């Protein structure tokens, strides 16, 4: 490591006790919230590895819930997140995974939204507040979510990818990386597209309306 700025030495401003347990966990919660795309009413969270071992002491439980509530990683209310969720009448359950080993700091999140919509997400905190999402619903992915990322669920037919890329290109958005991943269901695929800048809602709507596109998630 070599610091390129004084603020890598003095800084960042952060919520303790450690960026992998707090900032990383908040980020995983934020992403789960974005994937759900609406407010949640129920969350079932399974913790693995060191997340499971010391989640209370590190406040990982509070940080994950803070992320689900939409707080940012420097929000002073993170440590009150469980109380805030309780006051809002949200149902939250934690489960500790035993014996199953994923990344040391991993959480599975099952969310039920206010409309009854359900999603599943598996994310790991990989240090310094960075995260890696390895599963979204039925798809195995590897999403770092450092850059704006769009996930486009679609029917596996010729032409879909070109249409999506076309819409982005026409709106001046540069794709920096794109991967395809399949699920166990025949003909169903997910495009994970990383871009150099965030996608305006209008563009997301256009992509959602394209033929053979079944769902679009932006994070």
């Amino acid at each position, binding site marked *: 490591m070599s610091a390129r*700025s004084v603020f*890598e*030495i003095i800084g960042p401003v*952060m919520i*303790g*006790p450690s960026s992998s347990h*707090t900032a990383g966990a908040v980020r995983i919660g934020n992403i789960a919230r974005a994937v759900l795309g609406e407010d949640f009413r129920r969350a079932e969270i399974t913790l693995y590895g060191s997340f*499971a071992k010391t989640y209370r*002491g590190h406040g990982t439980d509070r940080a994950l819930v803070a992320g689900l509530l939409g707080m940012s990683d420097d929000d002073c209310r993170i440590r009150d997140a469980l109380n805030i969720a309780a006051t809002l009448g949200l149902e939250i359950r934690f489960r500790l995974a035993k014996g199953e080993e994923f990344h040391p700091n991993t959480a599975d999140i099952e969310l039920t939204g206010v409309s009854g919509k359900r999603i599943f997400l598996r994310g790991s905190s990989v240090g310094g507040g960075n995260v890696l999402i390895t599963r979204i619903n039925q798809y195995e992915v590897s999403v770092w979510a450092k850059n704006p990322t769009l996930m486009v669920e679609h029917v596996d037919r010729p032409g879909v990818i070109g249409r999506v890329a076309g819409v982005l290109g026409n709106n001046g958005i540069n794709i920096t990386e794109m991967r395809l991943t399949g699920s166990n269901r025949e003909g169903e695929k997910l495009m994970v597209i990383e871009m150099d800048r965030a996608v305006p809602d209008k563009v997301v709507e256009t992509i959602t309306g394209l033929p053979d596109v079944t769902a679009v998630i932006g994070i």
Partner: protein
Amino acid sequence: MRRKITISELVAAAEQRGCPIWQVVLEREARLQGTERKNIWQKMKEYWMVMKESLDVGIKPGNRSLSGLVGEEGTMLTRYMEKAKPLSGYGSVLAAAKAIGVAVVNASQGRIVAAPTAGSCGILPAVLSTVAEEIGAAEDAVISALFTAAGVGMVIDEHAGTAGAKSGCQAECGSASCMAAVAAAEMAGGTPRQAANAGALSLKNFLGLVCDPVAGLVEIPCVKRNAIGAGVALLAADMALAGIESKIPLDEVIQAMKDIGDAIPASLKETSLAGLAVTPTAREIEKRMNELEER
């Protein structure tokens, strides 16, 4: 490629121009980032505001970690100072109170500024605020001192790293105490050379210090290492200001820290597999924590 800076270059640059180290660091930052000095100064000032907030919360009653393993030590020390004449001097105890307070704020999921890490975040703000109080320095002097400290931290980061998981606690609390010692000595009117000596005198005392947190939490021994790290920084600054030199220059101490860090086994680098983390008492604490987690 950018060349790695050294302490001796920072000192030489300051001496040549007859300016303090902080000015050299601030100008270098402006050059590297391609922005104006006043923007960088402003950002550091904002960071200092956050540090001040954490210092305030730190010594208030009720400042306890999430686990409850540590808490209110800052308050205990300030109360003690009101009643007794501290053996190690008013300044050291005040700095220790502030440092441990901030470290507990971190352990309570409060807001802090990593300096250089979250685990060692109490030392630098505590030392600078204590020195400012003792010599009656204005806020600008503290912000300047933060640049001096950051410059030293950058050198350490380039040559050795500042992560406990890579080099042990010498790289966290040791680096913080070293940075604080240099900044404190300069703030109190020391020459760049004296300031560098203060850093060397401090860091030498942390060489070999391993990272062995109990139950994997940034609490035991971390918060107390912050308190004592602050005290060491002040004493090292005093020694340097008295004219004592470190026979081994700071650049070489930093290199030694790197070599020692490489030689420290993984069990003593944040993995909680040895050292204090496996003492009978630590095991007992860990067991209690696990029961709590599973409830």
